[in-house]
Each structure stands twice: as C-alpha cells, then as structure tokens.
C-alpha cells in the first residue's frame, strides 16, 4: 500500500496524497524549563510556546516577508506610525484556570497594547527598537509609533514578529511564574501537561480561527543531539526542528524515511579585534585574508551544506547579495608575504615571521562546530607562510565572555545567526563590547547603518546597507568564510512542515501540518 502511494506520488507529483486529519506530531527538544514567550531566546522554548500564542504576522516560508496572521493587514500611516488591523472573532483559549469553558473572550486591540508593553518591559532576549507609543484606535486597530522611521519593526524576525499576543488576565491571575508554567493564549494548541525536561503535551484548540489538522503535539525530551537523530530514524519522534551539525546532515541525507528541510542558517567567519596589536594594522589583517585559501577549505568541509560567504549579509534576508564583494577576497600568499614584509615582518631563525623580535604568533579562539575543521585547514596554511597561528577551542560561555571583554589574542571565530540586522549588531560602534566583539568603530559605517535603519524605502535602505557592508569588508574587520545552512530533520509521515523561523508555525495561512 505504502509503496503504491509513493509510486503514485512520484507519477503525479507530491500533491497526490490527500491531507489527513488527526494524529499526534512528536517533536524532539533539548531543554524547556519555562514557556513564557517573552522570557527566552532558546529555540526549543520559543517553538513550544509559539503553539499556544498568535503573533500579529509570521515571517513567510518562501521569501521571509511578513505574512498576515492575527493582523489581517497593516500599513504605514506615516514614516513613524504603523497601523495594524486585527482579525475579528479570534478567541482566547478556554477550559482553563483563567477562562472557564465557554467564558473566553475575543482578542482585541487592547490585548496587543498590553502585550507590546509587557514585551518592552520583560523581554531579555529581543528588543523592539525605539517604540514610543502603542495605542488602540478601536477594538480592532492598533497604532505603534516609533521615535524614528523603523522599517525593521515588521521585516526583522526578531522584532514585532516575536511579540505574540498574551491575555493580561492570565498573567495577573497566575503570576509571572505561574504563567511560565501554564501559558494561555489564542494559538492553535492548548497546553495539556508540562513537567520541565520530562513531559510537554498540547492538544488542538477546537475554537481556533483556522482549521487545524493535528489532534495533538508532543514535545519529546532528548537532550543529546545524536540521540535525537537516532530517535527520528527509530520512528520514536517525527521532527528534530534544528540540526546544527553538518556531519549529521551528511549522514541523514540518504536515510530512508527521513527528509531534510533547509531554511536559513548562520554566518561563520574570522573576526579581528581591530584594537589589539598587531591586528590594529590594516596591512596585517589584509595579509591574513590573502594568506588563506578559503574556497578550498569551504569546499572540503562545508559544501553542499553551506557555501562561501563574501560578506556578512546572508542570502535569506531581504537585503540583496553584493556580487562585487567577491573581488575583495583573493587568495594570494605571495602578496600576503610582501605586505607583511612591507610593514616590517621578516623571517626569524625558527622560520616564524617576526618584527622587532616579536614573532607573528596568535591563537584563534573558537567553539565546537564545522568551523573547527575549516579553521584547522586555514591555520595550516598560515603556518606554512611562517605565521605562528594556532587554534584554541573553548566552551561557548568562556568564548563569549572572552570576545566581549576584548579577547587578548585579537583574532577569533566570528559567529552570528545572520538575521536581518546582523551587520548592525556585529559592526556598529554602539554595540562594541557586546555583540560587536570586533570593537570596530567607523563613523562612516555607523552613519550608513543608522541611516539605513531609518529608511523606509527598500531600494535606498538596501543601497545604504550594502555600502556599509562593503566598507567593513574593505577594512578587513572580519574575513567572512561561509554561510552554513540550517535544517529540520523530518519523518516522511509529516507533511507541510515549515522550519521554525522566529517561532514554530504548524497552522498558519501558509501551511497546515498533518501526519500520515
């Protein structure tokens, strides 16, 4: 029977399978200790809590543009004012401590006002930018005003898309801690049981405004990533939402009964603290960038599960790729040596380049991941040129603190989730010592990024943004290496899965997950 269905699907295309109602979807997770959607940056917790709540809009599955959800539409009234029009008749979940069965109420503009304000107050993970006011115009219209024009408010996955709507009664009655254990929202699934790191189940919200195919969702606690993939193969769970290890990706791509869904990814490069000698000299950074054959290393380790990066702006945000950046990064070891000689480095008795008796010697600080192998290749190439480079692998927390407090070696593995505003986080001087671990300060770049962040017109914003990127890359504040793709590992019996992006959406205007 199954074989027949598959054969038929191959003949007439995947749509031959009719959607089926019912069933439970089982999703693996590493750690979930609380479910307040505003108090976490952890993917697992955000995925779980996003079943219970509705955001105003979701980030679309194909082009990463906002798609209506709780808000049917929105528009910019003027440069600093957004107006959102809410869907009517959406009810909060009932049959719980806060809203007894049949005694729920409609989601209105006041709830959006409450939610945005609470988000501004308690969210440690995400920021809305400079929101000056949020007000209900009528029951179904909300106006959000920003101090300056802010196009990212709706396009960046980490801004308004993160503000799911919460009912104030639930937080008032249950308390902050209670709400984190019994979240109540208007979303497609209601929480049925939650014991941290043990058991977490949801059932369909029968009154949801969209038809939901799944009966229930179970989050399955599997802290070890290797065991997570084994569990999918064993049929013990249906989905591993994020697979961060490309070795596992390579291993699973031909596994029977399993599909890999790619979406988004991360930026990985070599970063410099441009205030630490000798990397405070442009020539040294430039020479390093020419001394390494990035293409070869990326081809050997990463492809086809990622590709070479020439800038920080990833292909999955709405900014365009800048093809001219490619010319900046040419592998030319001889020129690298010449540049180093021109600033006074000469081979010492042990073959290591030195200047005034100081060897050109540094450790690249990194965390575990595919980059360790890429960097190993690059370090070997540097050593062949007489540069005493080594690799130092650290624990994530140590690495993060080290980078934020200045990183004594001056060069490090540069990692970011590569969201829409990643360039701003990584290179704007106002973030120095936090996300800007390059301690890079360039007035021109700051001005361009600030201007772009205020520019509503996309073409102009894109131009400014890419110009800033070009300046940063010309300055060699960082050497981009590659973008690594992110994947969901999904059992064949699951259909219409969309890799979570700012939240897990099993039911939306774009998709409706069902299982065979």
């Amino acid at each position: 029977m199954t074989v027949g269905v598959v054969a038929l699907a191959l003949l007439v295309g995947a749509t031959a399978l009719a959607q089926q109602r019912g069933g439970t979807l089982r999703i693996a997770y590493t750690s979930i200790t609380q479910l307040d959607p505003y108090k976490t940056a952890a993917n697992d917790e955000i995925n779980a809590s996003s079943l219970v709540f509705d955001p105003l809009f979701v980030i679309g599955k194909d082009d990463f543009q906002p798609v209506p959800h709780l808000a049917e539409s929105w528009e910019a009234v003027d440069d600093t004012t957004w107006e959102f029009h809410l869907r009517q008749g959406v009810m909060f979940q009932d049959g719980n401590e806060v809203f007894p069965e049949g005694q729920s109420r409609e989601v209105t503009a006041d709830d959006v006002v409450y939610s945005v304000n609470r988000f501004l107050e308690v969210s440690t993970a995400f920021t809305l930018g400079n929101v000056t006011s949020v007000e209900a115009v009528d029951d179904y219209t909300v106006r959000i005003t920003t101090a300056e024009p802010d196009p990212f408010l709706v396009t960046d996955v980490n801004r308004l898309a993160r503000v799911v709507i919460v009912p104030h009664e639930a937080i008032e009655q249950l308390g902050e801690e209670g709400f984190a254990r019994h979240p109540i929202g208007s979303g497609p699934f209601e929480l049925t049981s939650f014991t941290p790191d043990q058991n977490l189940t949801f059932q369909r919200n029968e009154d949801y405004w969209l038809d939901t195919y799944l009966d229930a969702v179970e989050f399955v606690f599997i802290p070890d990533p290797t065991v997570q993939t084994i569990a999918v193969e064993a049929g013990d769970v249906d989905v591993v939402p994020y697979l961060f290890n490309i070795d596992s990706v390579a291993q699973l791509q031909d596994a029977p009964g399993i599909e890999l869904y790619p979406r988004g990814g991360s930026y990985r490069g070599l970063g410099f603290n441009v205030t630490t000698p000798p990397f405070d000299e442009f020539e040294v950074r430039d020479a390093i960038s020419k001394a390494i054959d990035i293409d070869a290393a990326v081809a050997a380790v990463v492809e086809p599960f990622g590709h070479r990066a020439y800038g920080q702006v990833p292909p999955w945000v709405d900014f365009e790729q800048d093809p001219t950046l490619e010319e900046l990064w040419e592998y030319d070891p001889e020129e690298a040596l010449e540049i180093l000689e021109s600033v006074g480095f000469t081979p010492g008795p042990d073959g290591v380049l030195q200047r005034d008796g100081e060897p050109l010697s540094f450790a690249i600080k990194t965390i575990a991941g595919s980059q360790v192998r890429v960097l190993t290749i690059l370090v070997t190439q540097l050593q062949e040129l007489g540069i005493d480079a080594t690799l130092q692998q650290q624990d994530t927390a140590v690495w993060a603190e080290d980078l934020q407090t200045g990183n004594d070696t001056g060069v490090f593995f540069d990692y970011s989730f590569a969201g829409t505003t990643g360039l701003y986080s990584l290179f704007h001087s106002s973030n120095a010592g936090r996300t800007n671990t390059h301690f890079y300060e360039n007035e021109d770049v700051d001005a361009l990024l600030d201007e772009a962040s205020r520019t509503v017109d996309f073409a102009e914003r894109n131009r400014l943004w890419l110009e800033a990127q070009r300046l940063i890359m010309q300055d060699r504040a960082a050497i981009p290496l590659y973008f690594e793709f992110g994947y969901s590992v999904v059992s064949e019996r699951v259909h219409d899965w969309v890799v979570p992006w700012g939240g897990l959406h099993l039911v939306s205007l774009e998709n409706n997950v069902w299982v065979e």
Partner: protein
Amino acid sequence: MLAYAARRLLGMVPVLLGIAFITFALVSFAPGDAIRLMLGSESVNVENVERLRRELGLDLPWYQQFWNYLGGILSGDLGTSITSRQPVADQVFQRFPNTLVLTAASLLVALLIAVPLGVFAAARHNGAGDYLAMGFAMVGVAMPNFWLGLILLIVFGLELRWLPIRGIGSLADGVLDYASHLVLPAVTLGTSLAAILTRLTRNTMLDVLGEDYVRTARAKGVRPGRVLFRHALRNALLPVVTAAGLQFGALLGGAVIIETVFSWPGLGLLSINAIRQRDLPTMQGAVLVFATCFMLVTLLTDLLYAAINPRIRYG
C-alpha cells in the same frame, strides 16, 4: 550507634559549608557568565538584561552574593535559576529522585553482575571461567560509558527495538514500563562499577579461601557450595561493600553523562544544562545535593559494616 550517626551528621555541616564556598568561588571566578551569554545575542534588549542582573543580585560583589546565598540555604531557599527563573530548590528536588533511582538501579546491576561473577572466577581460579570473567572486568573498566550507552541504545533501541531509547517511564503505565526504561541506562552506568567490583570480589574471595578456617571447613567435609557462600563470601563481602559505597560518588558522576544519553530527567542533566548556560544558582544547588548525597551514602556504608560483620561496633 545512634550517637555515632548523629555525630557524623553534625560533622557534615562544616563540610557542606566548605563545599558551598568552593563551588561558589570556582563558578564566580571561572570565565563566562549567564548574563554575558544573553548579552551576546544579536537582538538583545540590553536594559532588560541589566535589570535582570540587578534583580538576581548578580551585580553585587561576590562575598555579598555568597552571604546572601548562605542566608538563603538556611531557610531552604537555593536561589532562583537565571534561565528558567524558577526556584532552584523545586527543580533540584523534582529531579533528584530520578537520579537516585538510576544510581540505585546501577548499583544493583553492578552487584548482581559482580558478586556471582567474582565468586565464580575465584572458584575457577586460573581456569577458563576466571580468564573470561577477568576479561569482562578489563573491558568494562576500559570502556567509556557514554560510548557504551550509545552502542546499547543503537543495538537494543534502534536495531532490535526491544527497549525504549529515552526518558523515564511512568509508574502509572505499570512497573514493567518503568523498568523497561531503566534497563539501558542502569546497565550502562552499572557496567564499569560491575567490572571493578568483579575483580575485587574475586581477589578477596581468593584471600578468604586461603584462610585456615576455610581449609578446616573443607576438611570437616562441608559441601563446597556451602564453604563458598556461607563461610567465604560473607567475609569477602566487606571490602566489596566498602568499594561499592565509595564508588557511589563515581556513579553520581557517571549519571551526569548517562542521563544526557538516555534523556533521563535527573540531577545530572540539570547540572549539564546549567553549566552550559552558566546558570550559577542551579549549578550550586545541584552540587550541594550531590555532595550531601555522597556523604550520606558514605555514612550508610560505615553503618552497613556493623550489619555485615557483627564484630564491628561503633560507639
């Protein structure tokens, strides 16, 4: 003996204080903290994170933090987790029974394997059975238990599908379900201890079997089985129990790793996650409970001596 136990319990207080201080100092001065991790996120709200730092008292000097922490412990408050914002005491005591079940089961597995195997090896001294048993002991000690765990998981969980690969069963689903979830982690964790105890049982049995009273018993015509189990084993068991008690600490340490492999929601897993996220209060709470547990087990071992060998008396 009661007075002895009470004295020992009282003696634990300064030790625990010392442990609290050392872990606190180690964690405070180690690089990397939870707040910095949060600040490293691309889209972070800096003001709110700074406020969280103040609310949790993480902006205070370390000695003041330690003082507040001690004050909390005395009133049973182990602090608030930085990441989950839930009371640490709740999290720790919710998981601790799970770890206790796992380690107890592992100890049982270890003894069930080690004692018969050790006795068998001693009885077949220098025979094929002896070599086989010692071979097992060697392999068992040498094998890293996370690796053994993964192998068992793939063989019995993925390939043969005999046993569940993850999680703790629910007693509500019956004892069999609960036990089936326990088998793989307990066997994995118990194997290296079993290996150590097998060697020990064999060696002490050999010592005892060489004693005069055993020869006398044999000369009197006591059946070999009775000599082995009645006369020899009981005396040989004392060092085995000591070793098992001392090795309990190693079991707790092993549980930290095994719980991750088998998704066992115990204290070890809680500590691993806390360490990853530099959740200092949770790490502290877990270490304190681990330490207390270890000391109690050591005391229990000492008291067990008296039960096994009536000649030992505490006063």
